[in-house]
């Protein structure tokens, strides 16, 4: 009896109104959760859509490069090609002489990538660890260089080049990359992060500057070197202005400049499928690197420049 009474008392207290309110509240929470869930999914879908806005054109380009010319000229936004025309690539490779320009591009990139460190690393080391007269002056030219874009100094530099016989030579083409301030800042920042104790102890052992640089500093900044290699490879592979301006003959021109030649036809429209095939060939190495190492590439491009350009 007593138990029953107690029970009824207990249920009384929470019955009817309370329970209803509780149910209502729970229902509201449930709905809120569901709405949030749906919103989350919508957000994700939107994110993907925005991402596609930046990727779709490249995929479309790949599909264009596989179409026959008539289909290509219709500018159909679809991506699926029924009969892929692989001979477009063969045509571009052979007839449009892309092979020659690919060779030049590779040569240019390899030359710059290997030779730049002989000049950049000593300069960065000097800036980071040494004191000398004129350091501030040399540093100030950085700002002058920022105000003076390559577009402005084009004519004077071209004049110097033509007097020194550097126009249309590999030496002239790679020369500015060897003194790129970007690389010097990057390595300088890395060298400055190395604890001073290391250098001091090396100096106590009477190590010379070059020993410190070659045997202590460079192994310590190996990750920066990889980052720098990645960034310079991408920028050199894509270089357009400098190569266009400082060459007169086709013998040294690289792939990006060659694509410009494909665009400029005498009459009518360019053969878009061939142009697209050429562009795909130009994009391929970088995109392959990006697909397999997207995180590293992003870190390299953003982190590298961020650190060095911000530091005043």
């Amino acid at each position, binding site marked *: 009896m007593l138990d029953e009474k107690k029970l009824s008392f207990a249920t009384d207290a929470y019955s009817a109104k309370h329970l209803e309110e509780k149910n209502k509240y729970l229902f509201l929470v449930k709905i809120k959760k569901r709405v949030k869930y749906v919103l989350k999914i919508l957000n994700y879908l939107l994110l993907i859509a925005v991402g596609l806005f930046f990727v779709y054109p490249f995929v479309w380009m790949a599909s264009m490069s596989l179409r026959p010319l008539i289909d290509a000229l219709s500018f159909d936004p679809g991506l699926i090609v029924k009969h892929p025309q692989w001979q477009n690539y063969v045509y571009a490779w052979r007839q449009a002489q892309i092979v020659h320009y690919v060779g030049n591009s590779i040569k240019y990139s390899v030359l710059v990538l290997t030779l730049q460190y002989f000049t950049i690393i*000593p300069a960065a080391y000097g800036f980071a660890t040494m004191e000398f007269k004129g350091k501030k002056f040399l540093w100030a030219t950085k700002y002058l260089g920022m105000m003076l874009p390559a577009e*402005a100094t*084009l004519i*004077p*530099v071209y004049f110097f080049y033509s007097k020194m016989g550097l126009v249309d030579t590999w030496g002239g083409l790679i020369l500015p990359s060897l003194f790129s301030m970007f690389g010097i800042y990057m390595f300088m920042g890395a060298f400055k992060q190395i604890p001073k104790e290391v250098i001091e102890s090396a100096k106590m052992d009477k190590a010379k*500057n070059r020993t410190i640089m070659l045997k202590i500093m460079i192994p310590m900044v190996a990750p920066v070197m990889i980052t720098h290699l990645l960034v310079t490879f991408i920028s050199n592979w894509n270089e357009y202005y400098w190569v266009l301006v400082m060459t007169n003959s086709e013998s040294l021109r690289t792939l*990006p400049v060659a694509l410009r030649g494909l665009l400029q036809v005498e009459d009518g429209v360019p053969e878009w499928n061939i142009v697209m095939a050429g562009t795909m060939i130009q994009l391929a190495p970088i995109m392959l690197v990006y697909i397999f190492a997207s995180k590293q590439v992003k870190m390299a491009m953003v982190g590298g420049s961020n650190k060095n350009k911000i530091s005043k």
Partner: protein
Amino acid sequence: MTDLKLVGKKYNEFCDAIDELKLVIKKAKSQDEKERLKTRISELKTELNDYKKSLNSEEIEAYRDYQKIRLDIKRCERLKKMDKLEAKIFKKLNPAYIYMIPAAFGAIFFTILPAIFMIIGSLFKVDLVSIWDSSFKGFWNYEMIFTRDTEFVKAIVNTIIFAFFTVILLMVITVLMATWLSKNTKIHNLSQTMVFTPHIASMVSVSILWILMLDPKGIINQILSIFGIQGPNWLMNTSTSLFSVAFVTVWKSIGYYVLIIIAGLQAIPPYVYEAAKLDKANSFTVFRKITVPLLSETLVFVFIMKFINSFKSFAAIDLMTQGGPRGSSMVLGYWIYNAGRVKFNYGFAMAGAVVLTIIISVFTFVAYRFFNKKSEN
């Protein structure tokens, strides 16, 4: 054991003799004597070889060791000499200068000399083939480009419009997108990666791509026609060509700046946001009162960089419009190239370059001043 020591003794004797003879050769005056000494040396060498051949295997090992030791000693002597020489040089000259040669050469050859040459050259009617034939004209070049050249003034106006348009558009889009994308889920990362793609593609490929997309029959106009809008010929229309190119450059660089701003956002300490949450601030207030002010340093850097870079957009203009139609998309960078490398009007080009440099310096200076003041407050 004594045998082996003997080998070393003999070897060293031979080598000493040869070295001595070599020294004598250097001092010898007549040709005959030199010849004589040389034959003597070769004789000694053959003798040494013969002696080497007569040794047994154990002795040969010892012989090689002695050879190594001797070479080592020689190397050390050479190094000592070099060190002394080095010390002598570096007593007078700071070693830093040797390390700085490349940087100094780059600065002089690609910045200082061109700047001087440019300023002086802009006052001459320049003949690059025989430079001494150029004649001094005072400010004639400037007068001509400002009054006679129809495209130059247009180019200045276009350059400034282009810069402001790209920077403002980019600022609005990237800040909003960065706050939206700045989360560490897989989907957000994927989206970031996709948005970043155009930045690593070359400007050439992006330009070619957008020439097609902006074609009168291209994808953009196809989409517009769904909504019943007749899109213009974007790149060949005087009123849209500049903005189309600006849009493409913005499209290409969004990903880069978004990632930079996200890096800045992630540097903001999370407790700031937690405090705002406790005060029940809504998300817009948080964005306006916390995110933007704390981000201002990154933003200043980003947009000064972008502003300067937008003066340099050459590839996009060159490929997409070539300054046309009727100079409507002509910017200064392209004008200089056109005047100098296409029309061979070097004096004009250099005068234009001076004007471009002045514009960039003024804008950069103002931007630094303006933003530094703001961030101090």
